[in-house]
């Protein structure tokens, strides 16, 4: 019941936007992901319960969309595009570098729970490669130095308990 405890107002706002309850499933799953840290079984049960859906339906959506994480992830999810265009501009080497610097494999999470590194398909920023998205925010024209800077900044933010604008804010804006 974490979701309902944490975001009662947001849920109401989201539900009000749709003529059919079940249409609210994707935004609610984002919220649930925020509340639980990932789309855990529990999280999906709760979403299903709020929307009168079969939980298997929710699980199926979590599997279909890549932005729902079914395993726990770090506070910052770094998703580097290594699709063809980015690869031609050195994305693969960039991923290797990032992996070495964070000392985690692709799909791994740092021990401090701060970073998860992933590779993804085209994010529609091929002309600004190498690039990644960090919790949905694009970081472009990257190289090693810029990556180091990004990591330091994020660590500092985490220490100051100030995170990137989270999905919750985006959803709340949408729910208004």
């Amino acid at each position: 019941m974490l979701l309902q405890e944490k975001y009662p107002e947001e849920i109401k706002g989201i539900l009000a936007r749709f003529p059919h309850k079940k249409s609210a499933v994707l935004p609610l799953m984002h919220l649930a992901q925020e509340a639980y840290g990932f789309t855990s079984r529990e999280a999906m049960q709760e979403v299903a319960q709020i929307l009168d859906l079969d939980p298997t339906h929710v699980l199926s959506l979590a599997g279909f969309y890549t932005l729902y994480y079914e395993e726990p992830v770090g506070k910052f999810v770094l998703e580097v595009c290594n699709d063809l265009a980015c690869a031609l501009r050195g994305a693969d080497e960039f991923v290797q570098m990032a992996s070495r610097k964070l000392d985690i494999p692709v799909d791994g999470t740092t021990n401090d729970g701060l970073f998860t590194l992933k590779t993804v398909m085209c994010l529609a920023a091929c002309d600004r490669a190498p690039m990644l998205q960090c919790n949905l925010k694009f970081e472009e024209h990257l190289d090693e130095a810029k990556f180091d800077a990004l990591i330091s900044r994020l660590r500092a933010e985490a220490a100051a308990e100030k995170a990137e604008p989270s999905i919750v804010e985006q959803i709340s804006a949408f729910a208004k």
Partner: protein
Amino acid sequence: MSDQVNLTIDGVELSVPNGTLVVDAAKMIENPIPVFCYHPKMAPVGMCRMCLVEIGLPVRDRNSGEPVLNDDGTPQVSFRGLQTACTVQVSEGMVVRTTTEVVTKAREDVIEFLLTSHPLDCPICDKGGECPLQNLTMEHGKGTSRMDYSLKMKLDKHVPLGELIYLDRERCIQCGRCVRFQEEIVDDPVIRFHNRGRSLEIVTMSDPGFDSYWSGNTTDICPVGALTTADFRFGARPWELTPVATLSPHCPSGANMTFSTRREAKSGGRSVIKRIMPRQNEPVNEIWISDRDRFVHHFADAPDRLKKPLMRKNGQLVEVEWGEALDAVAGKLQQSGTAVAGLSGDRVSNEDMFLFQKLFRQGLKSHNIDLANRRLAGGDVVAKVGISQGSNLLNLGQGDAIVVIASDLHEEVPVWWLRVKQAAQRGAELVILNLRPTRLDECSRNVIHYQPGQAIATLRQLVNDAKVAAADADNSPIKAAADVIMQANNVVAFYGAEGLTYAETDAVARLLANLLLIKNEEAYAGRPNNGLIPVWPHNNTQGAWDMGIHPALEPGYKPAAKPGMRANEVYAAAQTGALKALFLLAADPIGDGLMAGRGQLDFLVVQELFLTETAAQADVVLPAQSWAEREGTFTSGERRVQRYYPAIQPVGEARPDWQILAQIGERVGLEKPAFAASLVFRDLAKAVPQYKGMDYRALARVEKQWPDVGGDDLYYGGNAYENRVGLGMQWPAAAESGAVDHFEVADVDSELPGKVVVVRTAALFTPGTLINHTELLQARMAQPTLIIQAADAAKLQLAQGEKVMVEVAGRGVETAVRLSEDTPEGVALLRGVPYQAGLTELKVMG
């Protein structure tokens, strides 16, 4: 626009109904277009691309709209490349080509693509031999692949989707049949796709996994070996299996099934039942069976089956030879004069029941013959206004109405639940009268939940309202429901016994009959797709009525000159000593809490499969063959008489019930026994006028059914669907051939026995003599549960999850309390316990 459309497929001209899909049109002329995702019982999705064909349409002049002709006068046809035959509907003048080079190439490519990551493990695959993927690859594949074997994805091959069904991820070709079946057909969307592309997987989140009474059907329609049942997987190869037609041994729907048997060395060369699959009978169960029917067969081969006759000697039951046992039974019955009685269970065949009553009526001159556990009345009413011959619930839809009263069809007869639900989806109006919510409520706009004790009053009101013209009554929900019924083209009415006494069910049957007769000359009763269907507790309760297993009705519903004792009188007389000898055929009244013990009986004989509680107290126990070992007929609740066939050799020295009864009959002076079930049936068809014209041959007649799921192409999966041995015959209700009078309805007002009344509710997996032998289903068995609303629970000081002893049929049963606001006030629903009738007082014991 005409209803028929003319088209040409590979040069063959044909005319098919408007709206037909190209793939079905081709199948009608036995030109099977290969498919994987398409299934004729489900909406097409066009997902697999296996059915690509070339489709051409006649060219029309833009201005005149006239067809453009070639020089030779034939219409010009324009082809627009490949289209999926499963999603395109026929249209006038369409030309379909399935044998061209492009089509052949497309098929090769699709097969090659589907096999890119298929494990090709056919040699160890349960489906191999009856696998659409294998068959279509042999027929349409190229035989080679450009795919490097080492690039195949390795995925988990033993994923339990619950304990009944396993998924092999590598074999799945993502056709979606299983997911669509669960959602579209049975409305249990508990399995779905997860992830995409090569990583796609079928998942479930229900608890227990794959929580549906229908899960086994997905293994039939899966076109590969991706879904298998825990019961059959790695059990046998399809080509070793012999299909033997049978019927559900539980279900009054008369579901048609097929055993697959194999002779096995480890069983001493005996045939063993390896699995049960549905057998197509469109008016009965189409091609679906519930998991209870699919997995129930284990009782037939159970090690504790009775194998030899037993006789009590010096207080002990000891094995004896048949002759000795039969002589003893015949002698003792005769010595007891007319102080004898015979009570039968309602699962044995018509042949058995006919000879049972004959033994008593003619051999022993006693009418003390009855069902051991009579729950639902109205067989005599059904004989007059039962659903008519030629009816098919599949025909009901828009403009029709279906009434269901005092029954939870989903738990009692899932096949009927499915067919009623689907009729509602086609537009039929459902009128549901129950004292609590049931699953069908969601398909109905006319749900009436009556107060406990008000079933008859509510139905009476409905019938009275139905007699009044629509305008001049108030618009209560009952009146609205009555109007729905009276405005319908066709009306089918189901009635059950939930919360009702036997006498009350009789009133319900009569009231419903009067409803079906209201329009007098134009009454619903007597017309196809109309009439009454009793939700009988067992597969052959209907047959019991027909065969005269009734103290007041002889075979064919002929009133007995001098009615005998009813079952409850028999049980009482056994205690007082008024009855000397009792013969129980496939019944366990002591185990069911109906009879306190053998009381003052001189002689108790039990004919059974197992040493039941009652059998353990008997003087003679006669081992009977199960339905898998012998042939016979059952009559369904729709009065369809159907045959079943012997699949395995008899267990031990067990004999068919009818044979044992005939051999006893001979010893008490009846004629020499017939030597075949078919001959007994011939005799009973003479005694039961309703069965006129029926014999084993006629019952075995088949005709081509649509959709065509059989044939060599096997693309709908499984080799057991095809019905080669009989669709059965329905017997006509009296209303079909002449006027039937309205019925008198007795007043059976019931007093509420307490502040909170107990209603025993049905559950598909309720423990019982037969189903308890299926290990696999034990985890799904309904546990004894008392379901009550919070307010009532608080008054009784019961808490969620608490274990309490309550009285069921005279015995204490430990039940778990479950709070549910769906339960009406003043009612406690009792699930997962043996049957008990009517409303009883909630007695929480110590």
